[in-house]
Structures are given as C-alpha cells and as structure tokens.
C-alpha cells in the first residue's frame, strides 16, 4: 500500500518525527499517529491537526491533505487552537496569536519585518530566543512544540546573532 511521509510535530512530541500514513486515510488517523509519538503522561482534551503555517485546523473527518510530489507533509497536533506569542525587541513587546503549527521562522519574519520594520537581510541577522532562557529553537520548529496544551502562551526575545571570536 502506498503511503505518505509526514513530518510531525506537536504537544508532547519530541523534535520532528518522520511518520508514514497509508493513502486514503483521514485526518483523524493522524491523531492516532500523534498519540503513538507523544511522550509522558496521557493528557485529556481534544487534539487538533494543523498543516504547517496554517491558521485553522483540519476537519478530522476530511481526507488527509496531499503532499507535493517528493515532499513530505508538515503537520502539527495540539490542544491549543492559538498560541499567544509575545516578542520583545529593544525593550518593546508585541503580541500576536498564531496557530501552533506556525514555524519559529514565520514568527521571526512577522516580528522582525512586519512589526519591527527590519529589511529581510537585517532580519536574517536576528534570531528568536525563548524568554528567560538561552534556547534558540530551530527555524522549522513549530511554536506549539514549545508549549503545553494547558498554557497556550510563549515569549521570545528577538536578538542579534553574535560574532564568534577569541
């Protein structure tokens, strides 16, 4: 049976998991795959499936979305419908509600270019760092992977890349 490759992220799912879904399956079957990948204690609540960087969840009874030829699907499973996201730069904090499948790169572009008016080139010299930590999630990390379903909120600092010397 033919199958599609899925790069799956989500609440309680470590890193990015490569999973396969048989052709003809529906969105609800992706929830089962996510259950198998989730670590830690079982959690209650309704999980939703999002395509990467899409605002609204997929209908659980609809067919699984089709991937572009040769490319995997990029999906996210989370209990939060939106993540309250705060980005601080030069002492100024801006807020937006993103879907959990939004990549760290997309949040950075929003903050650096749209909100803080950097050029794309200057934006590339900056990175998002989780507030209160030294953690800088990879650009293709979905922000939902960084928060739990009971706390749909995250804060970042937008910081410049530093030269490595001496």
């Amino acid at each position, binding site marked *: 049976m033919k199958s599609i490759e899925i790069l799956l992220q989500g609440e309680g799912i470590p890193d*990015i998991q*490569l999973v396969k879904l048989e052709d003809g399956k529906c969105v609800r079957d992706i929830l089962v795959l996510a259950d198998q990948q989730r670590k830690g204690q079982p959690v209650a609540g309704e999980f939703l499936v999002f395509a990467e960087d899409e605002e609204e969840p997929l209908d659980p009874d609809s067919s699984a979305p089709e991937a572009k030829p040769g490319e995997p699907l990029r999906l996210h499973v989370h209990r939060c419908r939106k993540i309250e996201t705060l980005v601080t730069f030069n002492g100024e904090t801006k807020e937006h509600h993103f879907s959990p499948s939004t990549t760290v790169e997309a949040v950075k572009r929003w903050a650096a270019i749209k909100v803080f008016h950097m050029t794309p080139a200057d934006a590339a*010299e900056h*990175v998002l760092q989780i507030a209160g930590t030294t953690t*800088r999630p*990879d650009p293709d990390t979905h922000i939902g992977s960084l928060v739990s379903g009971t706390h749909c909120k995250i804060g970042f600092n937008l910081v410049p*890349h*530093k030269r*490595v010397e*001496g």
Partner: protein
Amino acid sequence: MSDGVITPDEQVLRLHLESGRFRSGTAAGRWRLVSLDWPFLIVTVTARDGVEYGFRFECRDYPRTAVTSQPWDVELNAPLQPNKWPGGQSRVLLAFNPGWKNGSCLYLPCDRHAIEGHDNWRTEHPSLLWDPDKGICKYLVIIYELLNSKDYGGRRVP
C-alpha cells in the same frame, strides 16, 4: 570500518540521518546527504546564492563527542581550495577561516577541535554548542544560518 560491523556511534549517526529533523532540512533544500563512509560523512549545505558547499564531518564517538567539519570539494573528494570557501565581512569570515588550523575545521563552538581552548564560548555562545540529542542537524543548522545570513558574500573568489 572494513569488517562490516556497524559500531554504536555509526548506528546513532545513521539513525539521525533517517530522523525527521534531517529529513526536514533535506526536504526544504537546506542540505543534502552526499555520502557516509564511516567515520566520514559528507553533506552539502545550500547558501542564499544557491551555491552548494560540501562539508566533510569526522564523526568518531558520535554523538557523545562533537564532530569536526571542514569545507570539502565534493567533485574532487578533497579539501576545498581556500579561494572557494564562503566569504563575508564578519561572522562568515570568522567561521570559515582557511587559516585556522590549516582549514581542517570550522571556527565554531559546535566543532570538536575549535571548542578546544575556548571555554569562554560555553557561556558566550551557549546556543552554538554541540548538542548530542540534535547531533549533526545542530551543526548543519548553524552552517545553514551563516550561509544564508546578510553577512554571507558568496565564494571568496567567485
């Protein structure tokens, strides 16, 4: 290894190369696996001008010990000539420095050889340190970021 036995360090590297994180980078066109001839791994990383730079990683004791990497000419299967290394004004020039240890490694905190004698990097650049859990993908993300930065200016001599 010539006896056909896959050692635990090679086994972990192979698992990381089959991981979702590595696949994500490949699917996005950020990097491409060229070969694995243990303990040497060759991967190309795409710069913002479309140039694919080859890197040869030496991966003994992976992932407990950080890998070390040098720019590699994939066609010649040899170290990349210094004039073909990535160029830039600041961060890129420092990281890709053919004069550093004769071009045998990159000047980055995630590199096994470069971190030696640079304990200050552990506090100054915690996000650029080697991470055994992310392994080779961590190093590749750092290279990709540099090659797609504003500072990157193409090959040293185009």
